[in-house]
């Protein structure tokens, strides 16, 4: 049997889920690639499962879509039967059930995040293989490789909503800078007791990193701004 222990499949995308004092913030880039071509530069990888639970999708677009579609369907029925909103834990467990039982066929890493009245804001990471790990923050996708060090440094417990969102935006932006399979805009979804808020951060609104330059309309603007040429009479 071929053991492939040292080379886990790399997955296009950067997705992040972070808990804060009162809820969760989910974040993702927006690049969908087929090989080297960017098929969609503005995709939405943060998908709704219920009113209070969302999932960040990474890896195979098809696999992650079909898994979330099934789980949305199951959760809809579950909510009707239960008579109240589904919990984040149940949502994560349903994703796990599909991910684990179809582990040979699926290639998708997911982050389930949401808010329920029993446990508050919760994040569950579900990597390849179908392991479920409840975490204060989770990172997934090929871009996440570049963020382990960043989160080791920057993560703190009990952040405010604003701090948490800024952390997520910064992190996705850093990953986009280095990961070819991540790019486009940064989307965030904030979920708490009050509801759900979607935000959108286009590339030109993000801060610049090492060796990145301020975007211009044209070279001509730079040349003109530099003033009259030397030796002009």
């Amino acid at each position, binding site marked *: 049997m071929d053991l492939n222990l040292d080379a886990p499949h790399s997955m296009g995308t950067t997705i992040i889920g972070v808990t804060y004092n009162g809820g969760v913030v989910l974040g993702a880039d927006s690049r969908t690639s087929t090989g080297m071509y960017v098929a969609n530069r503005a995709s939405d990888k943060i998908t709704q499962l219920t009113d209070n639970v969302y999932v960040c999708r990474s890896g195979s677009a098809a696999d992650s879509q079909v898994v979330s579609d099934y789980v949305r369907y199951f959760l809809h029925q579950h909510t009707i039967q239960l008579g109240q909103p589904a919990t984040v834990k149940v949502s994560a467990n349903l994703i796990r059930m599909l991910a684990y039982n*179809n582990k040979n066929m699926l290639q998708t890493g997911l982050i389930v995040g949401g808010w329920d009245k029993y446990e508050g804001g919760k994040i569950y990471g579900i990597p390849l293989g179908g*392991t479920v790990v409840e975490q204060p923050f989770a990172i997934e996708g090929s871009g996440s490789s570049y963020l382990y060090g960043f989160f080791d440094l920057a993560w703190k417990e009990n952040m405010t909503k604003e701090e948490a969102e800024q952390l997520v935006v910064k992190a996705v932006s850093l990953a986009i800078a280095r990961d070819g399979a991540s790019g486009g805009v940064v989307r965030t979804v904030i979920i708490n007791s009050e509801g759900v808020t979607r935000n959108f951060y286009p590339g030109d609104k993000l801060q610049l990193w090492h060796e990145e330059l301020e975007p211009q309309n044209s070279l001509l603007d730079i040349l003109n701004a530099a003033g009259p040429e030397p030796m002009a009479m």
Partner: protein
Amino acid sequence: MTFTIPIDNGDALKNAETDSQRTLYPYVTGTSIVAIKYKEGVLMASDMGGSYGSTLRYKNIERVKAIGKHSLLGASGEISDFQEILRYLDELVLNDNMWDDGNSLGPKEVHNYLTRVMYNRRNKFNPLWNTLVLGGVKNGQSYLGMVSMIGVSFEDNHVATGFGNHLARPILRDEWHADLSFEDGVKLLEKCMRVLLYRDRSAINKLQISKITEEGVTVSQPYSLKTFWEFQAFHNPTAGAQGSCGFPGGYLNEIF
């Protein structure tokens, strides 16, 4: 409850690959478990790491869990398979409790159940990718055994999985003896865990030591071990070396 996404592409031969599920390789893995019998029962040590290939990805995974009243299960290998095994055991313990006959599953029975499960999965070429350590105490009798992913199963006074097989076992063979006190047992396990920390790339410095006695199960809080780096030979190993080798004279000594 299982749910396999239904697929229909007609061709039975091609279906053979996808019909039968087989775990071809592990993704998120736990490293060694080391366990010993001691005077009052069994002690089991494990770190809290979940590796993803060479990345030390998860640092808060509990790889030792209490099973029923009398047993402790530690697992190395694929974490998702371990989580599935815990679900099977939940069902086993629940059914055992529902008999309401005052009897409860002992470690020997749980070990036997796990052996059957692991061996049968191996026969179907769809193993649960784990090496399991089962320890417990019932009616004053201590029990310690392990099962591998291919169904090899045995009992012993001390066991180790993964890298522990190579690094911890020699230490245990040398220093284990019957009726160890709790303190001596913990020190012995810590000795093994420290060596694993030095020499196992997938080990992390955050461990838990679990104990099971007639009274019940205790899982310690996570803690870290101090490590020693102040050997003289470590300070400047390449001093006096010719070339990149770490000893004076280097490989040129052989020639001249």
